[in-house]
């Protein structure tokens, strides 16, 4: 200790200062077991979703009514993509408020907005028919629709305006930044 200090120049002292701060800051971070946060439940749910203990859309429900950090939706999207037959992260033609057709992997997904309902059609193109449609906006708005069996390789379903999911579904479908998943 004494010997080292005697031979230290400015550069050595600067380096020693940096090394000391690293050690102390690591120690303080590791020792403070008491820190808790409003986000604790969100962080904990995220880790559970990543470990497969809860589903990604349960993660999206952790803060009902409150805005979800973009990053949480990104994690949910990655997990949902991993579990789906096919997914599309973003509409290829990113024009707003257009329910245009979207290529989702090998599938083609189309929508038709009628006066009292919105219809969803999935052309399976000889692929395994999906059982579930999921949509997720970048802000974490999530919708899920069970799909019926295909007829002539096309899955078709309609959601009535009176259905509770209707408004959310339209928001998801009209947002070109939404991700679609077929499961």
């Amino acid at each position, binding site marked *: *200790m*004494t010997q*080292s*200090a*005697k*031979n*230290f120049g400015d550069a*050595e002292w600067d*380096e*020693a*200062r940096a*090394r*000391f*701060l*690293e*050690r*102390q*800051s*690591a*120690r*303080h*971070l*590791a*020792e*403070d*077991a*008491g*820190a*808790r*946060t409003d*986000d*604790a439940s969100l*962080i*904990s749910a*995220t*880790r559970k979703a*990543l*470990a*497969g203990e809860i589903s990604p859309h349960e993660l999206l429900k952790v803060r009902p009514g409150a805005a979800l*950090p*973009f*990053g*949480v939706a*990104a*994690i949910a999207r*990655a*997990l949902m993509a*991993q579990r789906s037959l096919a997914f599309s992260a973003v509409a290829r033609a990113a024009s707003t408020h257009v329910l245009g057709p979207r290529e989702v992997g090998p599938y083609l997904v189309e929508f038709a907005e009628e006066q009292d309902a919105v219809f969803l059609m999935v052309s399976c193109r000889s692929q395994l028919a999906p059982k579930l449609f999921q949509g997720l906006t970048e802000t974490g708005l999530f919708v899920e629709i069970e799909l019926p069996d295909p007829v002539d390789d096309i899955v078709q379903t309609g959601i009535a305006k009176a259905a509770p999911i209707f408004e959310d579904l339209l928001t998801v479908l009209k947002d070109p930044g939404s991700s679609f998943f077929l499961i």
Partner: protein
Amino acid sequence: MTSVAAFWSEQAHRDFAGIFDGEGDRPRLRELVADALNRGWGGNRDKPFWALAILAGLIGEARARDRRIDELALLSQSSSRLWALLSAWAASNPSTRVKLDEGRIIVTPGEGSASLAVTRSRIEILRKVVEFLLVCDEFKFAQETMSALQALSRLGLSDPAAVAEHGRRFARAAYRYRTDHFLDGHASSAFSLILRFLQSQGDYEMRDDSVVDFWIWEENEKYRTYKASFHALADFVAAMRDVAEARGLAHAVSIDDPGIEARMREIEGESVFTIMDEASLIHDAPAEGERVGEASGPAAALRGSTLKVLSTAELRLLEQLLEIGSFGREHVLASLRLIGFHPVQSGLSNSLRTGRSKLSLDERLTCVEAIPYRQTAARSVELGHRLSEILKMALAQRLPANPSDARVARIREEGVLLLADFRGGARWKTAGAELETWMQIEPALIEAQSQLDVFNRSLARRAATTLDDLDAAFEQDRVRFSGILSERYGAGGQASSRAEIAQGAAPDRKAEESLP
């Protein structure tokens, strides 16, 4: 938490706590992850992120052949499961990039590039590092981190430049986080404080008394507990040593320089390094204390085993004696004070905070609860003997029945006798299962025993020279600590101590558990 000596923002403390929430008490893993995020590996803060990119690439490589490994396996699988899958894959698919060597997966992403040794404990640390990157700062870096993990998983190790670039991106995210959350100015003043203290002492010599002198130094308003003062000086000495060692390598110095000697030991001790270049030697320098192979440390490894070789009290003492580090093992009186009096100070803080206490304030201030040095010393020596016995039992099962070496034969014989009396709490289905469990704790036993041995030797040296009577030394300190603590926490000092408590000193439940 607003610590008196804060280094990180409150948000950083919450982010860090978040990744350990619900995982039980894993202090050693917390230390190793905090170390990786603050100090990096081998003196380079970017190395863990470089390692993270390579590990993600390795997962991608293995995933192409083994469908049990998914794209986000680093996050979805337990570390032991992922380690088992990756090492099995590496064993059956050796290549120029990946090979299994002495229980580690050696990954060399490109020709002539540095290598990374992947171990189970490294996977565990890197998993926490990536969790931190995902959740920190309100999930600010989650999207880019997820995309990078997915890209690496698809890429495997086929493009070393891309792997390196992803590593740099992880490191950049960590750098941005640090810029926002590290309280640089505040932290730097902690270093200046210690320098001023040492200057005030007239030399830079560190003695046992330096800790208590620093703790009560009038200018020291940052480190308000004996324990925090102890660790601040320990970190200061370690930082000086880090620099002296690095400088020893950078300039032509005497061969007796401790820096040279340490590096020589490092090179000679690890044969795998000799076949790699200098850069890989730096990459591969294991995090301090990581050699035991368990990210949780020797005490936790022993605590977690189905084989109950030590009592709870013995484990707690072992943890304390490992926690003091090399500084504490060199300054035994300073350590005896820490073990003896920190529980008293912690108890005072907590009882003032909560209003609950087994003893009255006045009784506490007499330090009647302090742990006598003789008691700690005797328990430490006893624990050392106990660990030797346990090691003999572990070894006895692995030594041949009739060894030709007389010393080996004696150890085996003693071990067999000890084993006959030992009831470790576990019941075995087969002799193989029993042997395997003993072998699992063997590295932890060796590590614990060797560190305890250093402490006990220092203790014996100290006791034989200046500490003729441990009881006398303890009584003298009890009066001194009682005076200091009364000044801070007694009737006259309560106002300031309350303010101090409000400012930070986190509750130390473990310290209170040590109280008699």
